[in-house]
């Protein structure tokens, strides 16, 4: 069933249609929230709040806009508010999940790839709020930069600039952390 048909059904109070509608973006949105907050628990709360806002706000949804873009705008705003509250309350500072997934007896290539991923994740955590949001929206939401600009309500050039610096920082971090390994191999 097409997205617009699902939305129409949702507007008539069809919960199953709502489940189907969100299901297409569930992993992307939840992944974005988890990576943005670094906490599964907090990501679940954000996701729940986003679902409530989307369900209530569907009547205001403009069909001309891409649904994923609209959904991520709500999700991003919820995430931002949550992070702001966290900073204020300083409640979750110690609850940071670890994304490491080392398993024993894996081939070297796999271990190196996982190490790269771990390093990228660490680098992403070191980005500024805006850079992190732009980078994660691009990767998880699969949004174009025009859509990201609308989502975070920033000019297109600023968003591209955030991405440029994010890539630059991540690349630098990877080079710095890979240097000892390279030296050890030599």
């Amino acid at each position, binding site marked *: 069933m097409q997205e617009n048909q699902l939305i*129409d059904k949702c*507007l*008539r*109070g069809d*919960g199953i249609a*709502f*489940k189907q509608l*969100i*299901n297409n973006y*569930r*992993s*992307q949105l*939840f*992944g974005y929230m*988890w*990576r943005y907050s670094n906490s599964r628990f907090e990501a*679940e709360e954000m*996701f*729940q709040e986003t*679902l*409530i806002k*989307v*369900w*209530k706000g569907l009547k205001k949804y403009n069909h001309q806009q891409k649904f994923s873009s609209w959904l991520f705008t709500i999700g991003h705003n919820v995430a931002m508010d949550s992070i702001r509250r966290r900073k204020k309350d300083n409640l979750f500072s110690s609850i940071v999940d670890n*994304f490491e*997934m080392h398993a024993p007896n894996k081939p070297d290539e796999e271990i190196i*790839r*996982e190490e*790269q*991923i771990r390093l*990228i*994740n660490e680098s*992403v955590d070191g980005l500024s709020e805006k850079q992190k949001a732009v980078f994660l929206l*691009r*990767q*998880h939401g699969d949004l*174009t*930069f*025009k859509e990201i600009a609308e989502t975070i309500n920033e000019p297109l*050039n600023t968003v*591209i*600039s955030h*991405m*440029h610096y994010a*890539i630059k920082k*991540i*690349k630098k971090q*990877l080079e710095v952390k890979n240097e000892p390994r390279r030296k050890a191999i030599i």
Partner: protein
Amino acid sequence: MNQEEKQLYKTFEKEVWLYLDNELSEKRRAFWDHKINEHQELRNYLNDCLDIGNTYRSNINISLSEDTYDLMIEKAIANNSFLEKLKSFFAGLFSSEYEFIFGKIAFASFLIVAAIIISIVSNRPNPVEQLTNTINNQLLEWNPIYVDKKISKVENLLRLAKDDDYKRYTKYGLNPENVDKNINLIGNNIDELKKDINSKKL
């Protein structure tokens, strides 16, 4: 890298994402295709942008369990207010998927119920006025003959007051018929006395 290349590289940094999103004009895109082929630095930067993204995405396997997701959906829907549910219900009635006739009936019923409620609420009489009217009506209904007689009596009195009979009536407590009767009676008595006197001659 000379000054011109540096400038080209900086411009590419700004436009690379629009290039990847296919947001550039065909002419501009062709320009960058050409430059990317020409310059290793540009290729490296483009590859960095793509590689970091691809490596990161290869590990996006974070997901919610089906049960948790179901619970969240239920909670989101249950969070809807009664008013919104009602609105959705009525919106649904007029959708193409439902029988339109059912919608008409439901709508007509709704209008009737609304009209009854409005009439009950808006035409409520003043309770004090209602009580006064009830008392007056009750008084009239209790003894209408008595009131009627009173009115007739007042009318007679007014009529009598217009002629001289009233004076006689008030003076002697008699009406003209009674006076005539009494006069006739006296006349009769005089006649009988005369007859009686004539029969008993000395």
